[in-house]
């Protein structure tokens, strides 16, 4: 086994991470029990971790300790509101949950609506309607710099994009003649936006792949006991055996039937 002063928890972590990474990537071959094992562990551990942290951070640190050690018994009110949501599981007292939901909806709406109008509507609207030319001491100027988001030409493109896309989604008027041209322009802007989003998504997914491969390369070192190579061989072995068993199983069944 490896030594080199690597703590045992790091070592176990390296083997588990390597194994689960390889198990998940076996899905690229096809769905199989190793992938399912990795998938179920991921879901289970994520939920378990979240529950434990939440119970400790909320239940213990934010409720129990302040109430019992600092006498903040007013915290019983939010605790009670939270517990009342669970009343939905009991039909006879399910109506109690409505009080909590009313509080959540009321608080949420009151908080969110003004903030969203200010941030997402007014500020963005202000940015969309910018001067299409700049007045300077020397007179009216028009900047054509596609790399500068705030140049006059880009202000014009933004305005055309916003108006044409809005018109495309305006279905009360038939898109004919000049309307059709505007709607088509809107489609072009939408396609460019979708293309940019897809390009970034590809970049994101490749980054995740690079991250996993980077870890696999690190864990292929002798100081970790070469888990990448050991578990890769084991994973391939299990997959080959599983594929062989899969091929055999339907034949046996057919023979038994005949």
């Amino acid at each position, binding site marked *: 086994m490896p030594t080199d002063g690597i703590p045992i928890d790091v070592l176990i972590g390296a083997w588990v991470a390597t194994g689960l990474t390889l198990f998940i990537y076996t899905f690229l071959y096809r769905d199989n029990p190793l992938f399912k094992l990795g998938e179920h562990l991921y879901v289970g551990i994520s939920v378990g971790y979240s529950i434990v*942290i939440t119970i400790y*951070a909320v239940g213990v640190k934010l409720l129990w300790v302040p109430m019992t050690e600092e006498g903040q018994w007013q915290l019983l009110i939010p605790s009670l509101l939270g517990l009342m949501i669970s009343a939905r599981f009991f039909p006879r007292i399910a109506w109690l949950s409505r009080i909590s939901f009313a509080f959540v909806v009321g608080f949420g709406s009151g*908080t*969110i609506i003004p903030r969203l109008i200010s941030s997402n509507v007014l500020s963005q609207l202000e940015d969309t309607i910018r001067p299409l030319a700049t007045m300077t001491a020397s007179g009216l100027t028009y900047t054509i710099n596609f790399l500068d988001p705030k140049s006059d030409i880009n202000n014009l493109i933004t305005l055309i994009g916003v108006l044409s896309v809005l018109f495309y989604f305006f279905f009360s008027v038939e898109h004919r003649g000049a309307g059709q041209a505007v709607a088509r322009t809107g489609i072009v802007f939408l396609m460019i936006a979708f293309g940019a989003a897809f390009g970034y998504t*590809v970049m994101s997914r490749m980054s995740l792949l690079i*991250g996993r491969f980077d870890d696999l*390369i690190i864990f292929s070192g002798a100081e970790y006991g070469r888990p990448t190579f050991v578990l890769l061989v084991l994973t391939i072995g299990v997959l080959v055996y599983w594929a062989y068993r899969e091929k055999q199983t339907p034949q046996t069944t057919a023979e038994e039937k005949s």
Partner: protein
Amino acid sequence: MNLSNHSIVTRMLAIDRRFIFMLIALATLIPLLNPINLPIMISPEVRAVYDHMESLPEGSVFLLSMDFDPASKPEVYPQAIALLRHAFKKNLKVIGLTLLVTGTGMAEEAMATVAEELEKINGTDYAFLGWRPGASAVILSMGQDLVGTFPQDHYGIPIDELSVMHNVKTLRDVDYAVSLAAGFPGVDEWYIYGKDKYRFELGGGSTAVMAPGLYPRLRAGQINGLIGGLRGAAEYEKLLDQSGKATAGMDSQSATHFVIIVLVIICNVFYVISRRQKRT
């Protein structure tokens, strides 16, 4: 000849997708094992974050909200490391926290690792506040009373006892905040419930998937800069002149993108040929 062409086109369009997976795996793996160090260009949005950090005087309060979890680690974690290195090198007062419960351990690890590397002391040079439930409500609450929202840090030490937190009572006392996001809550929430209401300078970092959606906020000046994905992290590492995980991954990123572009072109060529053959 025509039949043979038809056969090649049909076979290429029905190629086993596992062949493509293999190509992508090789394009990723080979540059990681044999880096060729392709040049990295700095984008204005990443430089804006760097320049703002540079402009902060020593002792300014820098808040880093690490709103991501292990699923986004390869993209966003290098951003956190680069920003923390920059902040500690500039001797800023660093406050770290997370709004995602599953990111708590990783955020704490990032703070502790960089602090140890640059010999910074918890409580004196930096504080890690940990996680609080409530997402957007936490930001609103911090805007009114930061100490009340986080009475203790992640390690259970009362905030009042941390010298780094002296004179930091609300978000208005923060000189620069950066949210590194992988979804909700993230940069949007920090702007909507934080900067827009309490008026402090805000920068953003995110996964590449989220980046296009944040450009309208950048253009409108709602955030002053944006570090997008692994690429953004690599740019920041270059500005810091300290290579890390992100820089190491850039060759692979370029190679995989090249392979995907070639595959898209090939697929379209074969698709057009097959359509023409069907017509004739």
